[in-house]
């Protein structure tokens, strides 16, 4: 085990760590632990159990498993919801440029790169230690067509002016999305960077009151929202223009499957589509000025109790709604 403290994090993080971290949690020894890194944003654990690598984040005394990777099966996506993130490929008329916000282990981006080597994939990740660990353990191999950019997701758009056929957003901190990546203003920026017919894919934790707010905020910006229930998470795909028919999406999925032989067949993933035609009850549209993402994420949906489960646990067992 190697331990690599980031100097700046140690300097600035010490008072915070002393205030919030329970002794023993910050340096918990996880089963099969191979590396622990204290980054500017969280404690990142890499474990290896039964040949599978996990990237686990420690945020406010809780552990969240964000990525799994099996080096023996580099074309496989072990986390179910990440397979559904790829369903977005069937929406744009062509997939040339893809943007991913929130890298994690980089497995989804690498999956796209392996299957569609001609596509340009840009991954934006706030934490440079996450990029380093993804490269070291999770088979993430940046090259000319797979770029990793160290930046805040929203700040990235302030300086990047390109358009993308598909924009995938999966930026989490524990159970909540940083508030500025889940507002009407942010989705409006994302929409402005999509090519005509392009789509946005958003991973949403369905068990908290952040869910109805996220869905209704997406609805406030995009004409259409499709929902894919994905192993305890929900993947929402948002796009403009007329509503796509199931047949047209299936036809496109079949064509892409034939061309790229995806390990997780696109037509099967598309079969999980549900169209969100109505607003979610009790979901307020979030704006930059008012986006209590943290408190919404701390309230369980339906029974108004504080969520105790880690994201990884909720993922494996569908939450009671």
């Amino acid at each position, binding site marked *: 085990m190697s331990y690599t403290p980031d100097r700046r994090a140690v300097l600035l993080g010490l008072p915070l760590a002393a205030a919030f971290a329970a002794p023993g949690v910050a340096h918990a020894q996880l089963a099969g632990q191979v590396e622990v890194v204290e980054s500017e944003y969280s404690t990142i654990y890499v474990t290896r159990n039964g040949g599978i690598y996990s990237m686990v984040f420690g945020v406010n005394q809780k552990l969240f498993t964000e990525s799994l990777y099996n080096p023996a099966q580099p074309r496989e996506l072990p986390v179910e919801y990440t397979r559904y993130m790829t369903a977005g490929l069937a929406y744009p008329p062509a997939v040339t440029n893809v943007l991913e916000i929130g890298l994690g282990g980089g497995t989804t981006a690498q999956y796209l790169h392996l299957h569609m080597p001609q596509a340009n994939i840009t991954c934006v990740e706030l934490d440079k230690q996450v990029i380093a660990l993804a490269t070291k353990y999770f088979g993430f191999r940046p090259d000319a067509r797979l770029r990793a950019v160290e930046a805040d997701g929203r700040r990235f758009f302030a300086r990047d002016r390109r358009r993308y056929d598909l924009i995938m957003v999966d930026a989490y901190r524990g159970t909540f999305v*940083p508030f500025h990546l889940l507002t009407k203003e942010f989705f409006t920026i994302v929409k402005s960077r999509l090519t005509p017919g392009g789509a946005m894919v958003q991973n949403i934790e369905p068990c908290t009151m952040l869910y109805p707010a996220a869905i209704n905020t997406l609805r406030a910006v995009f004409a259409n929202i499709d929902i894919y229930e994905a192993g305890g998470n929900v993947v929402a795909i948002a796009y403009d223009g007329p509503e796509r028919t199931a047949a047209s999406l299936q036809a496109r999925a079949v064509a892409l499957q034939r061309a790229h032989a995806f390990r997780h067949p696109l037509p099967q993933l598309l079969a999980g589509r549900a169209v969100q035609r109505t607003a979610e009850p009790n979901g307020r549209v979030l704006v930059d000025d008012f986006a209590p993402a943290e408190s919404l994420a701390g309230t369980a949906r339906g029974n108004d109790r504080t969520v105790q489960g880690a994201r990884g646990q909720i993922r494996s067992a569908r939450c009671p709604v």
Partner: protein
Amino acid sequence: MPSLTQAAILAFGFFLGVAMMGFQMAASRFLTPYFGSGIQVWASLISTTMLALMAGYYIGGTLADRRPRSGVLGAALIVAAIFLAAAPFIKDPVLGWASGAFENIVIGALISSVAIMVAPLTLMSFFSPYAVRLLLSDAQHGGRVAGLVYSITTVGNIVGTLGTSFVLMPLMGSRMITFTFAAVVALCGAGLMALRAGAAADGGDAR
């Protein structure tokens, strides 16, 4: 000085402490869409607050000896309230400009924080040295008076930080929070002007 006046001054100190940290929390919501939620934003906000405290303590302390009247402090706080109320209107032009002009997040966030926060927070920090001057009856109790003033404003700081994060933010928008604190600061300023405490007649260094 009657003890009711002293109690009122200390109560104003508490509410100003609340407003000072509460505004900092609201300002963090202003900066994040432009500069992200990284450590750079918090470092900028905290150092800007410290800069304002430094300037406010120094200027306020000097002014308190020259014009030791609650009305002068009250007027400074009214001006601070005007700056606070203006912050939601100037923030987007300032942040938009700084976000585009500086590639370095720390520089952009720091310049924005200074532009939005320094004026009101500096004027608000006049309070502590002024309150010590107004409450002090003799040098014998200087330590106790200063300690009391700093303790009470700091209790306000704690309430402002926690209350804004966990009570106000789930209830209302950041602009409304800022307007609320502007009103609180204006009321404190008006109260201090109404108190007419301090050496109104003799001025100078009279004690």
